[in-house]
C-alpha cells in the first residue's frame, strides 16, 4: 500500500521522534540526535519535492557510518545502551526512506519501544512524564496518518490521542494492580555506563567532600516503631582496613566476601562474625537508589535481612549483585550488641598495620599519649577530647594534602572533612596498637514531617572509625562529631553553613531555613518516596497483600473474574461515553416535561386517554380550558417538534429549554387559577 504520506503525518512523526529521542540523550550519545535531524531534514526536502530519496549507496553509507560510530562509542553491541542506541538509530535511518504506510507504522512502533526503554535507565516521576509525552505524541502521529491533510487543525490528533489514552488509564491501573509479578525469565544486560554513586571502594582525602556537594538521594528508610535517636543514625556501608598512608581500602577478606555474596562458586562461605546481642532491636525498610555498587547500608547489627543481601564478616550487608535498580530491603537490626567479643588473632595484624615512615609526627604523638593513659578506652577518649579542643575547621573545601597527609592535617592546616578526621583518628589509634578500621556510609538523614521516614542524601555521606576495645568489641568513634557536633546532631546543612550545596543554587534542600521551601522540599520528597514505594516497588508481596484485602483470598479464578469484571465495566463506561445517547436523552427530557404538563392538566380533571395523541389531547384540553388554549397549543407544538420532527438537532437544546419554561409557566398559572 504505497501512498504519499501526508504532510501533517510526517510532521507529527518528526515531532514525536524528537520528543522520544531527546530525553534519551542523558544516557545515549548526542550524535544520535544529529543523525535523526539530518534524516528528518532530508525526508522533508523529499516531501517538498526538492530532493529525491537518497540512492541505495548513500543509504548504505549512512547505515555503515552509524554502526561504526556505535562501535567506536561502545566497543560492543550487547548491553542496554548499545541496544537502545541501535534502536534509536534504526528509527532515525528509517525516517529517511519513509515511503508507505507500513514504513510509517514500523517507525512508530519502534519508537513506542524506544520511549519505553528510557524507563530502563531511570524511573523518576519526571522520566515517566517525559515518556508519557512521547507516547501521546506517537499516538497522535498514528492518528494523524489516518486523518490525512484536511481542514482540522494541526493539534487535532493530539487531542484525540490524549482522549484515547485517558480512556485507557483505568484499564492500565487494573492490569497494573493484578498482573502477576513474575521473576525475570532470563538474565539481561544491565546499564553499564551509569556512574557509580555513593562512597566508592576506597577512601582518599577529598572523596567525601565531593559527595558532600551532591544533593542526590542515596536511600530512604522508614522505621517500624520508634526512630532511634539522631546521634545513632550511622548507616554502615563499607569497611576499610588497609592503609597506604594516603588511601584506605577494603581488606582482602572484604573483597573476597563481595565475590562470595555474588555467588561465585570458587568463594567459600562467609564467616559470620561473633556477636552478643541485647534486647533492643529495630525494624526498618530501606529503598536504596541505584548506586551500581554492591553494598547496602544498615543501621545496627542485622539480625534478619532479605535474601538479596548477605552479611559480611565485618557486619556489613552486601548485595548479591550490584544495585543497578532500586533495591528494597527490610532489616531487623539489634541496636545493642557487642561485635566480636574476641578478636580473631589472624586479622589483628592487618588491623594495626601502618605504612613505614609516613606520618611520623602523628605516630610519635600517639605513642606518647598512649603511655600517658591507662587503657585503650581512656586513650581514645583523650584523643577525642584533643580533637574537640583543638581549633579544627570542618569544611567542604579542605584543600589538598601532601605525602604525610595526616601530619599535615593534624598539626598544620587543620582544615578537613569527615575523611580527614576519620583517617587521622584511625592512624593515631593504630599507632597505639589498637585494632582499628574505617567505616564508610552515611550519617543522619532528613526526617519527613508528613510521614515518618528518613531521606538520606549523598551529602550525608560520612566516614568514621571503629576500634576494637577489650570487653566492648568494636566501638564506634566519630572524631567529626567531636570537632563539629552540629554535623551529627542536625546535619551537614547546619555544620558547614554557606558551603552547603554551593554548586547547586536551585536545590530546595539548601533553603530549608525558609518555611515554604522546607515545606515544598518535604512535599516533593514525600511524593517521590510514595512513587518509589507504591509504584516502583509494587511487587508480588505487596500485590498479594493488596488483592487479599480486596478479594478475600487470591485465587486465579477470583483474579481472572476481577480483571474481566473491571475491564468490562470500564470498557462499557467508555462505550457509553462514546456512543452517548444524546438524542434519546433529549427526547426523554422532552417527554418528561410533556408528562409534567399532562399531570398538571390531570389535576384539572383532564386525563389523557389511552391512544390519544398529543394534538387530539390538546384540542380537548383547549376546549375545556379556553383561557389556557394558547399555552396548550404552544406546548403541544413544541413537544411534537422535539419528539417527532427532530431533523434539526442543532436547535434541540433551545427548543427543549423553551418547552421546559412554557410547562413551568403553565403549571404555575394552573395552580393559581
Amino acid at each position: 500500500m504505497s501512498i504519499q504520506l501526508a504532510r501533517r503525518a510526517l510532521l507529527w512523526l518528526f515531532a514525536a521522534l524528537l520528543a522520544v529521542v531527546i530525553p534519551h540523550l542523558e544516557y545515549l550519545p548526542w550524535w544520535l540526535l544529529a543523525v535523526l535531524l539530518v534524516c528528518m531534514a532530508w525526508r522533508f526536502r523529499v516531501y517538498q519535492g526538492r530532493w529525491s530519496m537518497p540512492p541505495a549507496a548513500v543509504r548504505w553509507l549512512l547505515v555503515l557510518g552509524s554502526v561504526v560510530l556505535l562501535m567506536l562509542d561502545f566497543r560492543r553491541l550487547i548491553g542496554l545502551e548499545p541496544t537502545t542506541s541501535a534502536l534509536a538509530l534504526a528509527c532515525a535511518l528509517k525516517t529517511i526512506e519513509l515511503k508507505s504506510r507500513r514504513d510509517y507504522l514500523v517507525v512508530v512502533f519502534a519508537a513506542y519501544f524506544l520511549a519505553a526503554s528510557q524507563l530502563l535507565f531511570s524511573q523518576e516521576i519526571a522520566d515517566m512524564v517525559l515518556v508519557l509525552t512521547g507516547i501521546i505524541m506517537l499516538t497522535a502521529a498514528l492518528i494523524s496518518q489516518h486523518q490525512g491533510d484536511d481542514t482540522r487543525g494541526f493539534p487535532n490528533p493530539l487531542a484525540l490521542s490524549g482522549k484515547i489514552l485517558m480512556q485507557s488509564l483505568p484499564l492500565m491501573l487494573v492490569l497494573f494492580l493484578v498482573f502477576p509479578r513474575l521473576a525475570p525469565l532470563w538474565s539481561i544486560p544491565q546499564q553499564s555506563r551509569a556512574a557509580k554513586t555513593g562512597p566508592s571502594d576506597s577512601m582518599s582525602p577529598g572523596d567525601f567532600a565531593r559527595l558532600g556537594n551532591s544533593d542526590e538521594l542515596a536511600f530512604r528508610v522508614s522505621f517500624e516503631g520508634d526512630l532511634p535517636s539522631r546521634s545513632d543514625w550511622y548507616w554502615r556501608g563499607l569497611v576499610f582496613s588497609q592503609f597506604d598512608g594516603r588511601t584506605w581500602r577494603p581488606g582482602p577478606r572484604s573483597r573476597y566476601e563481595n565475590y562470595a555474596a555474588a555467588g561465585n562458586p570458587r568463594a567459600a562461605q562467609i564467616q559470620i562474625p561473633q556477636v552478643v546481642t541485647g534486647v533492643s532491636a529495630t525494624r526498618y525498610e530501606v529503598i536504596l537508589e541505584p548506586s551500581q555498587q554492591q553494598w547496602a547500608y544498615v543501621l545496627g547489627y542485622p539480625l534478619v535481612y532479605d535474601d538479596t543481601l548477605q552479611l559480611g564478616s565485618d557486619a556489613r550487608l552486601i548485595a548479591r549483585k550490584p544495585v543497578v535498580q532500586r533495591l528494597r530491603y527490610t532489616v531487623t537490626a539489634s541496636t545493642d550488641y557487642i561485635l566480636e567479643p574476641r578478636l580473631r588473632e589472624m586479622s589483628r595484624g592487618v588491623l594495626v598495620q601502618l605504612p613505614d615512615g609516613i606520618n611520623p609526627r602523628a605516630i610519635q604523638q600517639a605513642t606518647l599519649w598512649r603511655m600517658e593513659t591507662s587503657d585503650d578506652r581512656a586513650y581514645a577518649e583523650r584523643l577525642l577530647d584533643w580533637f574537640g579542643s583543638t581549633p579544627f575547621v570542618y569544611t567542604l573545601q579542605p584543600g589538598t594534602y601532601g605525602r604525610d597527609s595526616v601530619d599535615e592535617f593534624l598539626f598544620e592546616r587543620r582544615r578537613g572533612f569527615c575523611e580527614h578526621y576519620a583517617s587521622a583518628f584511625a592512624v593515631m589509634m593504630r599507632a597505639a596498637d589498637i585494632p582499628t578500621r574505617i567505616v564508610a556510609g552515611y550519617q543522619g538523614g532528613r526526617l519527613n514531617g508528613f510521614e515518618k521516614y528518613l531521606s538520606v542524601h549523598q551529602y550525608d555521606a560520612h566516614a568514621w572509625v571503629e576500634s576494637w576495645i577489650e570487653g566492648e568489641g568494636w566501638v564506634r568513634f566519630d572524631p567529626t562529631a567531636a570537632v563539629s557536633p552540629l554535623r551529627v546532631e542536625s546535619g551537614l546543612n547546619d555544620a558547614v553553613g554557606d558551603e552547603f550545596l554551593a554548586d547547586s543554587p536551585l536545590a530546595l534542600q539548601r533553603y530549608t531555613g525558609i518555611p515554604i521551601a522546607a515545606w515544598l522540599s518535604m512535599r516533593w520528597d514525600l511524593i517521590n518516596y510514595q512513587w518509589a514505594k507504591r509504584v516502583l516497588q509494587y511487587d508480588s508481596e505487596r500485590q498479594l497483600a493488596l488483592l487479599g484485602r480486596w478479594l478475600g483470598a487470591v485465587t486465579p479464578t477470583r483474579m481472572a473474574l476481577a480483571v474481566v469484571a473491571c475491564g468490562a465495566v470500564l470498557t462499557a463506561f467508555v462505550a457509553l461515553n462514546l456512543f452517548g445517547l444524546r438524542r434519546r436523552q433529549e427526547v426523554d427530557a422532552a417527554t418528561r416535561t410533556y408528562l409534567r404538563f399532562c399531570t398538571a392538566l390531570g389535576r384539572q380533571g383532564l386525563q389523557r386517554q389511552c391512544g390519544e395523541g398529543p394534538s387530539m389531547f390538546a384540542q380537548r384540553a383547549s376546549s375545556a380550558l379556553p383561557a389556557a388554549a394558547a399555552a396548550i397549543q404552544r406546548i403541544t407544538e413544541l413537544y411534537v417538534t422535539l419528539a417527532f420532527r427532530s431533523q434539526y438537532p442543532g436547535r434541540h437544546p433551545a427548543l427543549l429549554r423553551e418547552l421546559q419554561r412554557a410547562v413551568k409557566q403553565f403549571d404555575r398559572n394552573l395552580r393559581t387559577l
Partner: protein
Amino acid sequence: MTVSSQAIGGGIRSRIQGRFQRWLVRRVPPVREALLSQRNIFIFPSAAGLVFLFMLLTLLLTGINYENNLVLALTFLLGGMFVISVLHTFANLSGLVLSGAQAPSVFVGQRACFQLRIRDTQQRVHDDLRIVWDDAEPTIVRMQANAQLDLPLYISTHQRGPMRPGRLRIDTRYPTGLIRAWCRIALDTRCVVFPSPGPLTPLQRADGSGDDGLLTEQEGTDDFSGFRTYREGDPLRHVAWKTLARGQPLQLREYISQADRQQWLDWDHTATLGDTEHRLSVLCRWVLEFERDGSEYGLRMPAESIAPGRGDGHRDRCLTALALFGYSEPVA
C-alpha cells in the same frame, strides 16, 4: 498425488467459500437500506494491530525481565489503548445508514453507475471510510456529523442482463489503525445491462421468404405523398421549411418510406444468426437504428410482445426486454 490433493484442497476451499457466502447471506441479507451496527459490523485487529501486539509482548517481557514496573505500566497503557481503539473504530463505522438507488441502464462494456447514499444518524464525524464495491478502486470519504453523502460508484459490466453489484465493503481503521472494522452490505439495487449493439445484419424470416425479413404493415416507396400538420416528436428533417417561410403553420412533408412503416422486430427472424447473445445484439442494433430513424417499431419475443411505438421510453422497454431475455425477473 499433488494434483489430486490440490483438487481436494480447491474443493474444500470452494466449499468453505460457498459456506461462508451462504452464512453471509443469512447473517447480512440484501437490503434496501442498511444501518451499520453491531449486527453487521465485523471487527478484528489489522495487520498493523497484530504487529503492535507483538511489540507489546516484547515490551511485556522487557518489563518482566527488568522487573520494571513502569515499563509494565506502559505496556498496560498501550494494551488499554488497543482495547479502547476497538470502541473508537467501531464508533467510526456504526450509525451510518447506507442506501443504494437503481442505476441507469447501460450497454455491456460500459460502466454502471450506482448511487450510494451514506447518512450519519449518530451526530458523529466519520473519518477515513474506505468504500469498495467488488473489484473497483476504493473510494475514501470522510463524513461530518449528520451529513449525507451521495457517492457514485462505477462498476464495469461484462454481461447483459440484470446486474446486481456484489457486496459493498466499507471498512475503516480510524483512528489508530490498529483495528479494522468492516461491513459487507448487499444492497438490494440492480442495473439492467443491455446487450451491446451488434452488426447491422438483415433479418430473415424463419421460412426464408421475404427480402429483408422485416415484417411491415405497409408497402411503399420513398415518394412524396403530401403535407400534414406537425406533431410533437416528428423528425425535423421532414419539416416543410418552404411553407414555413411563407408564413404557413409548421407542416410536415409526408413520404411513404421504409422508415415510416410500422415494423416488427421478431425474435424468430434471427434464428439463422447463431447463438442467443448474437441474436440479441443484432436486435439491439435494429432497435437503436429504428429509433434513430424515428420509425415506429415493435418487438416480438417468445415470452412477450411489445406493440409498435417510438421514443426513449419505448426504446428502453424494448432493450430491457432484450436484456432480460432468458432471465426470470420481471421488468423493473
